[in-house]
């Protein structure tokens, strides 16, 4: 790599030629404050908080967009720079609602942090305030433009990461806003509710819809039997939301905390992930043998399902009809479980803890009432659960680990890896291989489909049958592969698609992390759970076997069809 010599704050440094000044200052151990800049998004230089002095330049420059050059002399710390940064933040605060104490992002707000870091002690300007209505139009996200600092990160996340292009800057000057087309609510545009915009928003302008109130209410109602399921990716991120290092595996503490909160039963979505593999695996084999629509594509990620229904309605036959683990679980809670536990399903409240904002929308789809009741009553994200734990005064660090309840808390390593990109595919392959060959699979780690690469491909020989698979994450990559399918250029048999980067571990409902490698750490946590599992193949889960023998019958059977499978339809939003 070609390097250039430069001087930063008097020290000599060699930095790659393609770096910006901001990147170079990181090498120099300087923490230049940033706000509109995001380590994973294209820099735009909108906010000017990161200004520095470049010798010879007429004015301060925005370091996030200014390329380095040979012999450049940069100063990052002078009275003029500090005053300029403080002024920028003060001006942002001048028309910002100063309701930090009651804001959802209180203590997790980058604007708040930066105001403290640059030393704002007074806001000298009393600016005109904005007065935009709240966008509360949809089940997943709440937008408050009054808190928007027009940094444009959400625009970039939605277009660069997801290829969905919901947001754009609109209007001009003081009236500049970040809005969906025609200033409509997210429910009226092609929003998949993936929540990646909320996960890059530095303030409280885009936040996760808070559904904790009805859950608190249900927990306080002695007439209700409140059951909770926890998704695989929650256990590797909840600790992070409660002050532990990224990737901490907190399964046992989480179960204990949920019991303390008053849930009657704490179950594991991994159980229904195993069930998903049974149904989806059987469906795949059926399609393979009987000439069904191929490639078959996974349907666990509701952000991805929304995306398919919005942008690829002609290809919906490719989606597995198997419901997502959340919805399979929901359908069983008020039928199978209620029967076993001799409960009136009308008194059972089914709550799920998910890393995902789109799951909130999935749970209220009209067809998700297979049990005769709302299959999943409330969906809380990882961050909402963290908030409940804090609100209840539970000291998470000191909690002793507890185990999930039986029978829907029994799960395999194949279930837990659903939380990472490639996990559904790997879990399916572990089961499908044995179903095809009838022999025990020796090496069950399908490492080609793991990791953070955008598109992963593998060709496998399963008992003489060649199976070509692909795994993609982020909707931008989904678009690429769907366009290939539409053009007839994708010769895969089976594709896994997850909407969020890294899969569910990088979901919109997860704690916001600016650590560059936080996703890998969460992924490592997921595979750690898998390797530590005694059973690592879904079809060997004794609780799943029991479920089929005593109640459900066969995969793809009549009861399965009614409870565990669904259909997709084109979405019209306006």
């Amino acid at each position, binding site marked *: 790599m070609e390097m250039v010599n430069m001087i930063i704050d008097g020290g000599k440094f060699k930095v790659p030629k393609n770096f910006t000044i901001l990147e170079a200052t990181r090498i120099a151990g300087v923490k230049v404050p940033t706000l509109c800049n995001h380590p994973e998004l294209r820099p735009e230089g909108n906010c000017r908080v990161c200004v520095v002095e470049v010798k010879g330049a007429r004015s301060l420059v925005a370091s996030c967009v200014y390329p380095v050059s040979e012999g450049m002399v940069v100063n990052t710390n002078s009275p003029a720079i500090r005053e300029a940064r403080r002024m920028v933040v003060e001006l942002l605060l001048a028309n910002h609602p100063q309701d930090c104490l009651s804001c959802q992002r209180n203590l997790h707000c980058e604007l708040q942090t930066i105001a403290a870091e640059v030393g704002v002690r007074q806001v000298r300007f009393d600016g005109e305030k904005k007065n935009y209505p709240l966008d509360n139009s949809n089940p997943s996200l709440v937008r408050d433009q009054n808190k928007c600092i027009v940094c444009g990160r959400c625009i970039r996340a939605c*277009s660069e990461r997801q290829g969905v*292009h*919901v*947001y*754009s*800057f*609109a*209007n*001009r000057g003081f009236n500049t806003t970040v*809005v*969906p*087309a*025609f*200033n409509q609510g997210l429910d009226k*545009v*092609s929003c998949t509710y993936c929540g990646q915009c909320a996960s890059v928003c530095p303030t409280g302008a885009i936040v996760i819809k808070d559904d904790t109130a009805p859950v608190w209410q249900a927990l306080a109602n002695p007439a209700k039997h409140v059951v909770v399921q926890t998704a695989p990716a929650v256990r590797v991120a909840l600790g992070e939301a409660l002050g532990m290092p990224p990737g901490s595996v907190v399964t046992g503490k989480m179960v204990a905390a949920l019991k303390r909160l008053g849930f009657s039963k704490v179950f594991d979505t991994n159980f229904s992930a195993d069930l998903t593999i049974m149904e989806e695996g059987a469906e795949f084999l059926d399609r393979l043998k009987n000439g069904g629509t191929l490639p078959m594509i996974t349907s666990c990620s509701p952000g991805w399902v929304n995306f398919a229904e*919005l942008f690829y309605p002609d290809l919906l036959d490719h989606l597995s009809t198997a419901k997502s683990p959340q919805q399979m679980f929901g359908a069983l809670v008020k039928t199978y479980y209620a029967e076993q536990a001799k409960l009136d399903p009308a008194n059972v409240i089914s709550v799920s803890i998910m890393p995902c904002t789109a799951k909130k929308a999935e749970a209220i789809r009209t067809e998700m009432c297979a049990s005769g009741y709302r299959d999943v009553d409330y969906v809380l994200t990882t961050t909402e659960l963290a908030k409940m734990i804090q609100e209840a005064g539970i000291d998470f660090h000191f909690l002793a680990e507890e185990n999930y309840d039986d029978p829907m808390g029994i799960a395999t390593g194949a279930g837990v890896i659903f939380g990472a990109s490639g996990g559904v595919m790997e879990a399916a392959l572990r089961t499908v291989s044995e179903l095809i060959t009838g022999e025990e699979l020796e090496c069950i780690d399908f490492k080609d489909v793991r990791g953070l690469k955008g598109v992963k491909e593998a060709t496998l020989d399963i008992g003489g049958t060649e199976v070509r698979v692909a795994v993609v994450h982020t909707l931008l990559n989904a678009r690429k592969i769907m366009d290939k399918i539409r053009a007839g250029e994708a010769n895969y048999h089976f594709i896994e698609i997850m909407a969020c980067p890294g899969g569910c571990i990088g979901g919109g409902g997860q704690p916001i992390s600016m650590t560059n490698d936080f996703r890998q750490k969460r992924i490592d946590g997921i595979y750690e759970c898998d390797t530590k599992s005694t059973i690592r193949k879904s079809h060997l889960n004794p609780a799943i076997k029991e479920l089929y023998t005593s109640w459900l019958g066969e995969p793809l059977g009549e009861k399965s069809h009614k409870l565990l499978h669904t259909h997709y339809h084109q*979405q*019209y*939003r*306006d």
Partner: protein
Amino acid sequence: MSNQCKCNCGGKSNAFTQLDEILSKYQNTKGALIPVLQEAQSAYGYLAREVVDYIAEKMNIPVSQIYGVVTFYSQFHLNPRGKNIIRVCQGTACHVRGAKAILKAVEDNLKIAAGETTSDLNFTLETVACLGACGLAPVMMVNDDTHGRLTPEGITEILDKYR
């Protein structure tokens, strides 16, 4: 999302024949969005939602981005424009000579706010930063006619000429 025809023709007629001609003229030109929008607006009078959606689909540009461009430039209009365009000056000279009261008088008379169009599509009311006629302040234009040394009381008489 959908670009289906929203009238009652059942999708049989293509209401966008003119627009198709404009689009085909620019189909191989990069960065043609603004000229397409300008020509579409001059063909249809304003940029209706359906027109913007259609342009987005045909040019393969996200509709959110086109909305951003349309709202950035004051030359583009998303709503029908009135037969008469009133532009009330809010420049410095007019401001010190009572432009706010003039604007309010026009708004009260037409029962619309600045930026809006009367429901009978007779008037569109806009503000401008300076009309370059500071000697006549406070001033406004109706179409190509300049009206100066305005008083709030005189507004009705002027507007009545255009009714």
